[in-house]
């Protein structure tokens, strides 16, 4: 009997001991099994400066990305050669295309859980993750502070407009490796001929719609749309975001979609498509939405139209995408491979050093990675090199463009430069929840399956739920 008592009390003691140590959070990570950095109890907000990376101690920086990437692999090799005592451990999710959604869910959930538990990788690729929420919960290091206090970081070497563009709440919480530009490629010849005033640096989507209607009267070919390549539900989402405050009152948690204003908007967009002013097609159009990935890409897109057969060739120009009312002129960009630093990391100095290495000229100019490099000097160098060569080859495998050489002029680079230096409006990698709801539900209206009232009701319903959580 006594033995039983002893046994029970011993068990209870062990349990309490385990409970207490869990609460204080001072365990040693099991280095063999869990490759996450050691747990630390350093309070957040203390990481404004991180000091220089160690040159003697053995440190491991765990870097988690969703997809495995050559750019990171290359960076890892080069950095480890320079710093033999530091190991960069790359983690990614293995998946095939069929299971992509499941793998994504796993990545998001595992990273969330790890970060909330005070663990998690030191560096994280943020593209697929809800970075806004991470920032709100102070899970990421504020890189602006690191930049301010780090004398070796030369801000002018980078596209500061992009960095400013992604600053939220007074801080940069993710360092992009590169970025893309968004714009409208337009038929310059036709626009000049039509004499319609195209004020692309300041137009909003509703002004664009008006301009488009005017242009529609000057179309050269039958069934030529003014804007192509955009499905009605996406166009509608853009229009709504244009007048966001009219439809969404975030402070009071009210959505205003069961209104005449929204019904009008739906009708307006529908008529644009019915009148073939805008279409989802990209064959016979004046403008099309496009993403520009690199200078060579830019040249190809611009020059392509000049070599269309059957006398259908024309000169193109990149125009600025319409934006919301009351904002200053600027172009849109989207960052790529944004890297965040875990606020609970124990190897912050080394991790920050690695990030700086990845955006340094060495990595960025040799980069085979897509997008415009964030390191401005690298971009300028590659632009100059391209100019020196003087031409770019088309990348079409078959068809009339195959093997075609496109010329590059300084003018082209200058035009592109304007976009790059005025890239101040970031486009999110993932659409916001409200945008998702809009695109999903309005599809039914535009395909004629549901009435405007039915669609508005559902949207109102769902958006209210989002706003009130």
């Amino acid at each position: 009997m006594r033995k039983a008592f002893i046994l029970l009390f011993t068990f209870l003691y062990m349990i309490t001991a385990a409970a207490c140590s869990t609460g204080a959070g001072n365990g040693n990570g099991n280095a063999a099994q869990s490759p996450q950095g050691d747990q630390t109890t350093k309070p957040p907000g203390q990481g404004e400066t991180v000091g220089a990376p160690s040159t003697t101690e053995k440190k491991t920086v765990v870097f988690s990305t969703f997809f495995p990437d050559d750019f990171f692999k290359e960076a890892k090799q080069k950095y480890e050669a320079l710093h033999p005592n530091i190991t960069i451990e790359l983690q990614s999710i293995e998946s095939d295309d069929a299971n992509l959604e499941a793998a994504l869910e796993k990545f998001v959930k595992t990273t969330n859980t790890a970060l909330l538990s005070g663990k998690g990788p030191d560096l994280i690729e943020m593209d697929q993750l809800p970075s806004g929420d991470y920032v709100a919960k102070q899970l990421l290091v504020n890189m602006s502070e690191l930049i301010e206090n780090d004398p070796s970081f030369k801000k002018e070497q980078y596209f500061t407009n992009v960095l400013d563009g992604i600053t939220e709440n007074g801080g940069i919480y993710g360092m992009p490796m590169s970025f893309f530009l968004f714009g409208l490629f337009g038929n310059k010849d036709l626009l000049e001929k039509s004499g319609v005033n195209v004020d692309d640096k300041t137009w909003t989507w509703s002004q664009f719609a008006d301009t488009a209607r005017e242009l529609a009267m000057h179309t050269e070919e039958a069934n030529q749309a003014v804007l192509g390549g955009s499905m009605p539900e996406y166009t509608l989402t853009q229009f709504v975001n244009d007048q966001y405050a009219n439809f969404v009152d975030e402070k009071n948690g009210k959505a205003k979609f069961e209104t005449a204003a929204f019904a009008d908007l739906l009708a307006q967009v529908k008529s644009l498509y019915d009148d073939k002013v805008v279409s989802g097609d990209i064959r016979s159009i004046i403008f099309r939405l496009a993403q520009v990935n690199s200078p060579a890409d830019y040249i190809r897109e611009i020059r392509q139209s000049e070599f269309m057969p059957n006398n259908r060739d024309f000169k193109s120009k990149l125009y600025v995408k319409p934006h919301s009312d009351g904002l200053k002129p600027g172009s849109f960009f989207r960052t790529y491979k944004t890297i965040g630093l875990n606020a609970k990391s124990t190897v912050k100095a080394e991790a920050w050093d690695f990030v700086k290495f990845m955006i340094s000229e060495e990595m960025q100019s040799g980069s085979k990675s897509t997008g415009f490099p964030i390191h401005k000097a690298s971009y300028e160098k590659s632009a100059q090199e391209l100019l020196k060569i003087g031409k770019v080859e088309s990348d079409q495998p078959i068809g009339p463009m195959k093997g075609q050489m496109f010329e590059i002029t300084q003018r082209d680079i200058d035009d592109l430069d304007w976009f790059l230096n005025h890239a101040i409006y970031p486009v999110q990698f993932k659409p916001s929840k409200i945008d998702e709801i809009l695109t999903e539900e309005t599809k039914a209206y535009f395909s004629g399956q549901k009435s405007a009232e039915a669609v508005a009701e559902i949207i109102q319903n769902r958006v209210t739920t989002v706003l009130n959580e």
Partner: protein
Amino acid sequence: MRGLALFRKLTLTLVMGVIAAAMLFPIAVTFTNSLMTEDEIGYNYHLIGKMADIGAGEKDGFINLKLLPDWISFRQYAEVLVHKPKFLHMFWNSVFLVVPIIAGQVLVASLAAYAFAKLRFWGREKLFVVYLMTMLMPFQVTLVPNYMIADKLGLMNSNSAIILPGIFSAFGVFMLRQFMAHIPYLYIEAAKMDGAGHLRIFYRVIVPLVKPGIAALVVLLFADNWNMVEQPLIFLEEAMKQPLSLYLSRINEGARGVAFAASVVYMAPMVMLFLYAESYLVEGIQLSGIKG
């Protein structure tokens, strides 16, 4: 009289049969579809989730539900069982997760249930309420603490991170306690008088009397754990260790063809288990037959 009883038996069987057939409808569809070729499936179901664009002149259509395949083909099963070894691998992963959980929980829970049901000790009711409460917590809440604990115990990315919590869940304790409650205390008294210690009473008297309960526990534990998704998602990092439930937790548009055969293979163990356990479930107890 005999004829009436027979008639009654027949009608009841028929009525239940019809209802059962309705219950089985989704399963029947899965089964028959598993014998179809991928093309047929694509043709039948390609309209799922899409809205025809009436404005553009597309014609409205409906999904084609075929209960009998036009062309019987075992292609899907070949894909699943032979061509893609990872599928069978995941199947065994599931087995190696579920079997230890069931074995462990039956053992651990039956001991604890006896204590709750028939032994008197201080704090019995309060402790039992604590057991109950934990079953009510949704997993999103316990996920972060569980993660921390698994990490502390060095269990990350191992099956133990899933098996251990599975064994100690309150479910079995609760269930077996309810079944043990039926056993009249007299029998325990009688056994005690014969000089049996608690352990003896446990496996000589109690266990045989709760056999239906244990059978039910095994069946339901299997059902619950064979289908588990959240725990492997978070605690198992490697794709090779994933159980089958994870693979079938999402419908992938591209893999629709194989999904049916995969589902059939997935369901098979449960069916076999139930058919085996069924005899225990309907075995009655004749108390008068038990002596001391």
